[in-house]
Structures are given as C-alpha cells and as structure tokens.
C-alpha cells in the first residue's frame, strides 16, 4: 500500500530513512537534479499514505543501437518498508517506461558482488548477470570483510530485444574493465 509517484527535487529533504542505509549512497545536488532534469519519467518514489518516503529508484536511458537501454542508477527501500514488494513495483514501472516510452532493448543495473540480498531480488524479477565489471566501485564494500569492488552488470530484456541478446548464460565469467563500460 503506497503511492508510486515521480521523484521530486524536494524529496531530497525526506529521504534520510532510506539513505541512512549502508548500501545507499548520498550524492550531490547536481547528481539528483541532473537526473530529474533529463529523465524525470525514470525516477520514482514510493510514498506511504502518511507522506513518509518508503523507497526510490533513479534511472536513465543511454547507449546507442542495440545497446540503447534503461539503466537503474540507484534503487533503495527503507528497512521498515521491506518485504512489501515496493522495489518490484518500482522496477516494473521503470521497465515499462523504458520499453514503451524509450523503446530500449533492455534494462540493466550494477550490483556489488557481495550484495547477495539485492542480487537475489533482481534474479527473482528476471535479471541475470551479463558480465562482471572489474573495479567498478571506487571504494570498498561497506562489508569490509570481503573487500569487494567488482560489480555484476545484470540485465533484463525488453520487448524490443527479440533475440534476447541481453541474456548470457555464462555472464559471471565474462570479465570487462570499468573503463570499458559506460
């Protein structure tokens, strides 16, 4: 039970319960506003009936040719609102708009290798590992034990990807360097 609506600039005053999560990075004003200034239809929040923010997603459209796709830059749900299917709904909308409004071939996202919980979620909703990007993250994982900086690039094909080129069976073994990805 929530309201899935557009992310607005003033939501930056209300997103602490989400951003105080250790996996969720806080960026500069320019970062958020540059997304809103260009892809407002790929940025949403989930809002509780009492007005509290429950989660958000920030996305963009990029690439060219058959690499033209929707990209999930950040997605996070506050701890107290997990297990309510909120992330699924946000991802569904982002995929729908990437498909119908942008006509992208797929949607992709990056996830730290050691963020198992997130990876499970993405796999459940149709994403699979397309490739492993080495040293993608500039800093170590918050879980200092694993010291992991690599990311999996996970993709989900959209209706335009008729040949399902964005799905690879052996994606985990395909290594690329961070400089090779956008």
């Amino acid at each position, binding site marked *: 039970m929530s309201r899935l609506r557009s992310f607005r600039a003033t939501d930056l005053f209300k997103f602490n319960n989400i951003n105080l999560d250790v996996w969720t990075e806080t960026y500069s004003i320019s970062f958020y506003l540059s997304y809103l200034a260009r892809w407002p239809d790929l940025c949403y929040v989930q809002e509780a009936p009492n007005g509290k923010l429950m989660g958000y997603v920030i996305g963009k459209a990029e690439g060219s040719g058959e690499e033209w796709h929707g990209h999930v830059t950040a997605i996070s749900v506050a701890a107290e609102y*997990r297990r309510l299917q909120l992330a699924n709904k946000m991802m569904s909308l982002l995929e729908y708009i990437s498909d119908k409004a942008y006509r992208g071939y797929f949607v992709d996202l990056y996830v730290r290798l050691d963020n198992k919980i997130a990876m499970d979620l993405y796999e459940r909703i149709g994403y699979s590992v397309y490739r492993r990007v080495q040293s993608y993250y500039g800093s170590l994982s918050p879980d200092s034990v694993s010291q992991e900086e690599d990311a999996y690039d996970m993709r989900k094909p959209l209706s335009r990807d008729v040949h399902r080129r964005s799905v690879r069976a052996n994606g985990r073994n395909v290594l690329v360097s961070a400089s090779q990805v956008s």
Partner: protein
Amino acid sequence: MSRQLEERQVRAIYESIDTGSYKAAVQQANKLLKRQPGNVLYKALKVLALARTGRPDDEAEAHGLLDEVILSRPKDESVLGVTSHALKALNRPFDSITLFEEAFKQAPHDEELGSQAFMANIRVGNWKPAQLLATRMFKNFGKDRMLWWAVMCAVLQSMYANAQLTASSSLSTATATKISAASAAMKQPAGDKDKTDVRNLLLNLALRLIERAPETTHANADRFALHLDILQALERADEALVMLDTEHGKHLVRTSPVVQEIRRELILRTAAWDKERAATEEAMQSGDRSWEHVLSNINSHLYAVVAPSIDTIPIIDPGLPGPLPPWPAPPVPEDKREALLAAAQECKKYFDTMVAQDGEAGKDERTGWLALLELERRVRAYDLGGRETEGVIDVPELLESYVKAFGGKAVCVEDVLGHAELLDEAGKERLRASAEATATELEGDVASITSTSVLQRLITALKLSRAFAAVPRTAEQEVADAKRYAAAYFAALPLGKDIPKTEIQPADDLAVLAAQALVGAHAASQDQVYLYAAAALLETACSASRYAYGLRLCLVRVYRMLGAGKLALKHYRLLGAKLVQTDTLSHFVLARGSMFSLASNGDLDYLAEATEAGVIYVSNTAETPEMLVRAFQWEKYSQVTDFMTFQDRLECSLQRDLTLVELARMRILHTGPRAGAITDAELVDMKGFFDRIVSDRYDNRDLGVLPSLQPIAGDSFDKQTTLGPVAPAGGWANAFLKVYLRTFVNPLELDRQQDPEVLKKLGVELPTHDEPLSERVKHITDEELSELTEEERALVDAIDELLSWVERHQTKEAANGNGNGNGHAEGGDKDVVERIAKGFEDAQARIEALAADPDGTLAWKILHASTLLHERFVLFGLVSSSVTSKNASKKKTDPLAQGVRTIRTRGTAALKAVCAALTARAEREDAATLVDRCKDVLGDAVEVGATMDVLATSRREAFEGLAHGIARVSLS
C-alpha cells in the same frame, strides 16, 4: 610575439587556473598584458584567476577589471567562456545577462549566443526578458524548443503576477525571496481582480504561443503536461480532458508519470466522479493497489454527493506531508447528510469486499484495511449534525484484526498509530490489552522463535502495548518494562547471528524500546543512572548492529544529555550523513552544539562539523540554478518549479541560520575577542538572514528518523532528550543574530541598504519597517526568549545591558563634541556596571552549584552554563576593546573605561572560579563509580564497564578541556 608562442602562453594560464595555481596565472596574465594591455582575453583570464584566489584584495581588483571586460562588449567565444566563469566566481549573475545579450546583439544569427543569453536570464529568474528573447529566437531560428521556452516563461510570469515580492538586504537572499514569493503565489488561488487579469493575460499568451506550434511538437510529455497545466489554470479543464482522450493523450497517460499526475488533478476539477470510480475500481481489480486509486475512489463516492468547490482544492504540493492531504471537508446541507452516509456505506461495502476477497485469496494485502480507515477519517471530518462521530466502521475492531493480520510486518505499528486519533480511550485500552496478551504469549519463549516474522509480531505487540499505555509512568514501571524489553532483545538476538554485517539485526527495535523506557524512567525520576544504563545498552546493540541508524541516533541523544559531546559526534559521524543530509540531520549534533565544541581548547571537531554543514548552502547557490538551466535545455518543464522550490527551501532553511549562528559562536570561543573572528561574508549573511521573517524559513530538519516508542499520551523521546526548553528554532536564531549583529556590526553599516539599482533589476521591493535595523536588533521578543535556556537569556540580557550602556555614552560624547566626560562615573553607570559584573558572579555561583552535584545534575547543563558564561565574557571583550581603544587617551577616570575595567576584573575572577569548578568536576569523573551506580539497573544482561569507561573519559576531557580552553582564550 608569434601566434604559436601566444597560444602556448595562453594555454599555460588555463593550465595554471585548472590546477589551482591562481597566483601564477595572474603573473602569467600580467606578463601578456604588459605587451598587449587592451587584450580582452588576457584581462578575462586575469579576472578569473584573481576571482579564485579567495583573497579580498584580489577580488576587488577582479571586479574592476571585469567591468572593463563587460564594457568592451566581447563576442569572442573564448572571452565569453572565461568571463562567464569569472562572473559565476564573483557572484554577478546579472552581468552574465548583459554579457551574452550584448554579444547576441552583435551576432544575432548566432543561435548559441542567443541560448546563452536566454539561460543567463533563467539562472536569476528573469522570466519576462527570457520570454521575449525566446520568442524572438523562435522567429529567427524556428526551433520548437524556443517557442516552448517562451511558453514556460510566460507561465512563470503568471505565477509572479499574484505574488508580493520582497527582498532582504543580501543579494542572494533577495533572489531567493523572489522565488519563494512566486512559489507561494503559485499555490494560491488568484488574488485580487487586477492581478487575476494579469495572470490570465499571461496564461492566454502562453496558450496562443502553443497554438502557433506545430501539432507534432506535443510528442514530448513535458510539453503536453505544460499545455494541460495551462488549460487547468485557466479553468478549461474540459478541454484538457479532451486532449487526454486522444490516442496520443492516452499513450502519454500510460507512459508518463507527470501526465498521469496532472490527469488526476483534472479529474478533481471536472467532477467526473462516476468515470473516476469506474477507472479506479478497474485498476484496483487488476491488481494495481496504488494509494492514489484508493483516495480517488473514496473521493468519487463522497464528492458525488457534496462536491468541494474548486477553490478549496489546493494544488498538490510536494512539500506537504501526505500524497493527497485531507482537504477541508465541504459543508453538507442537512438534506444531503443521509445521502452522504449512504455513499460512505457504499464505499465501505466496496473495500469490505476487497478485504474479504484478498483474505480468501491468501493475499498479503493491506489496501482494503487502510482504505476503510481512511474512509472513516473522511466521514468524521464532515459536519453531519453529530452523526459523523458514529462513523461507518468499528475502528477498534478493525485495528485489532489488522494487527492480527499484519503484526508480522514492521510497518504495522506505523499504520495503527497513524489512526490513533480515531480511537477513544476505551478503544486504545482495547488495543493495548490485545497487544499485551499477544506479547505475553510470545515472549514466554522468545528463544524458540525461529522466524523474523514471529519476532516482528512480538515487537509489534510490545510497541503497541507501550504506545497505548496510560501516563504518567513511574520510574519503577519504566524500569520494569526496560528489563522486559532487554530480556526479549537478548533472547532474540541469536536469530540474526548469521545475517551479513551490513544488515540490521531483526531484534534491534527491542533494544530501542528498552533504551527509551530507561529514558522514560529518567524523565519520571530525574535519576541519571537510567541514562547510564540506556547508553550501555545502546552501545551493546550498536556493536551488534553496526548500521542501525535508529539505535545510533538514540545514543547520540543520550550522550548529549550526559555531556559526552565527543561520543555523540562520533556516533553521528558513523551515520555517514553528508551533502544535502547535513541540512536535515546536522541538528542532531549542532543544536546548541557550541557547548560541546571545545574549540577554545583547540579541538576543532565540532567547528569542522558546523563548517561542513554550511557547505551545502554554497553548493545550492552554485549548482541548483545550473540544474534549472538543464531542465530548460532538456525541456523538462515539470521540474522547473520543483527546482525553484528546492533551491528556496535550502536557501531559506532554518538549519542554515542555526548553523551559521553556532559556527559564529564556536569561532569566537576559539579565537577570543578578535574583530576578525567572524568574516565579513558571514556578517552579511547574518544581516540577510535576520531580515527573513520567521515564517519565511523552512524547517527541513528531519526528526522522523529518530525512533519514538514512548506512550503516545506522554512526551515523545525527542522532547525527553532535547537539551533546553525546546530545540533551537527561528526565535533562538533571531535572538542570537541580534546579539551578534549588534556586537560585530556598527549601526551605520547595519542600516546600509542594498543598492536600489540592483534591487530594481531583481524586480523586488525592500520590506518596510518602522525602525531601522540598528534599532530592531535591540528588541528581543518574548516569543524569541521563550526558546532560550536560562543561561542563554542571561547572556542576551547582559550583552543588551552592556551595549545599551556603551551606546548611551557614545551618544552623549557625540553630543558633547566628541567627548570630554565629566570624569566621574554617574550613579547610573555604577548600577549598570554592578549589574553586569554581578551577572558574571551569579552565573559562576549557578555553575559551582551544578558542578558540585554530579549525581543530581546532567553534565550538559554544566557545560552549557560554562560555555555561555565564557561566550558572554568574549562578547564583553569585543565590546570593551573598542571602548578602551577609543578612550585610550582619556583620563583613567573615564566612566566607561572605569566600568569596563571593573567588569573585566570581576568577570575574570568569575571565570577563574568556574575553571576551578570544572577541573574539580573533571577529577570526580570516575568510571568505577558510574559502573557501581548503574550495573544493577538491567542486571547482568548488559555489560556496562566499557561504556562507563568511555563515558567517564569523554566527560573528564570535556570538563578539563573547557577549563583549559577558557584559561587559554580569556585568562592568559
């Protein structure tokens, strides 16, 4: 000089600037200028380098040289680029307009220059010139986007047509106030007739412009949405709905959230209730359980009987809490009451069915339940001749069932408490008893709980049982509860033993409950032993759940009460709050933070934190206007007013003013009574902030992240742990701004108005006041005083008395021909001097009494009183140094100089005594004693030794540090 050599030298200057070697860049530019004094590019480069050195002298030179560059009307791309950067660095956005407009005039076929001139106007909100320019550009270049720029600018002008523009004395604030006024006007229905006419004229102009655009340009969702918005504002919603009913419109409704949102507003204004009901029911039936559908469905039932007038439906404001705020219920004529209740019953039937069907299908779905509660809230808001109190549902029954169904979800408690106002006392008691029964059943064997969902049920039950508990609570009751929660916490902790370190423990809320019950015990008894136990428990829980911000924020609050500012700051920093979060979260450590800063002793942690917290406001000024430009570039018109509101909320943030004041206070305690302790720029900001009326400030501070699990009928955890009568807010900021402005800025400077030409360009008017600023800073209102602690009031009174006394003498001296005093202290002087000096001694006595009672006094009070006394002495030093230097040549018997000496002597003695009291208090700080006092509160479950060690060390260092700091700054 060959062209190649010249290019190389110019490149070298660019490189020097890029690498931050500004001094070298200036020298390189000077060298080139020697050969070609009139070269505008060299001048522009020199200006940019000078502007970035950060030295006031260089900045002054840069301004002069920049004027020369602008007057030369450059049109060369390189010169324009460099000059544009220099203008930004020197905060001269209006000259950017001149620069590009002049260049565009000289090259009217250069589309890029036209765009630059347009965007320069956008940056400062110059909508009318921007609209005219965009229209002209559309004629010249024929690009659709230019036409839509003009449309958007006409709409923005229409918003201002209804706004009363005011400005305060600083340029940046004036700009912000302008935006604020427009935002406010945008939300309001049209004002008087003349203004409405102007507004409609501009909106019709926007519509005519759109009609000139080819149909195909509507492909862009934001253009389409803007068109709909204009029609809506002109009360032509029917036409807008026709647009939405086209194939293209339907496509955009499906694929653009912005268009969807406008569609919903339009429905409200066109009263198409039947259609809306069918649409929402279809959507919900297909599985889309958006809260918007629920609200729309309820509206469609109730408004079909009594529709609200259009004027009472506010435009949805993203700043307001809640997606669709409950609007004032329209009056219901007597003959429609029955029909309204019948409609509510009909609506109830729909959601009852939804609940039943979801249940039968085994769906984990809260929608129907929450919809029924919302319906009840709406019905009760009507005046139905008393029948509204009966409502349509049995709220306690529903909530009790709701807890049974959803108690395993963390959100359950929030859902229930969000509807607590629908419960009478009996209803609350029923829920409490029910929750208590569940808790008792589950906690009997917590260790056997193997599912987080069952654990969550226990947590929900305990939270609700506590929330609905009767108040006041005794310390004994609170301690008993704390033991109960702590026992459950430790029993449940193993459930999370295998989760990754980055996850928060499922049992954390039990630790929060226990800690808050202990804080409740302290509130009931004033015995700080419970706070020690709370700190130990929270430390334990934090080490088990490293990223549980709720636990950590509770700990920050408890440590502040206990006077352990360093520990509070350490835990706050572990939260990793940064950038825009500093505006909403830094209050957790910066509220009255100067008492913990120890800047006087050279510990700059708090000072650095306050400085860091101020950076976001500079970023806002630099970054947000650029993002506004981007929104125009990408034609995302839906974002324009949002960005403006965002900028305004940061620009006029209450926390910004509070941070500035705290920073100034820490700074003077660090430097002592030196004139340069507060920079000119900070004083200009203070002056600008002061002229904002309190209601102009936005309180962005986030308290929602601080858990409050106290009984809802009593004080919140926030209130119980706030240092002082209330948290510093607008009144507190004003009181300190007045004291500091009066101390640091001379009256002539205070009353200096902003250049009327600049204000004219801004299109704003100065606010009118009966008194000049130099007089207004002398009066502190009761409302402002009510936010101050006793010690803060004492400081404000003392500095007021001191400054008034000095001013009286200076006025008299001026009248007597620059003053030969009479050589004798007047009776009035003696009284004043006595009062001020005694003020120091009275504060000293209060501090000594506080410090002598470590068990009875919370340590923050000692640090607060001592820091305030020191601040008073430093401010006195600043005032007196100007008096003594002016009167240096006079006889020793000059009453001012004589009085100042007396005050200094007695003030110094008071401070010395305070230092001795602080040192003695530090020596009494002993971890073993603390352990002895609190180890039995929660029993063996919590290891208190380590926490008491760090607590005792932190406090010892705080007391000692403050004593050393006072001695270093003011007694050496």
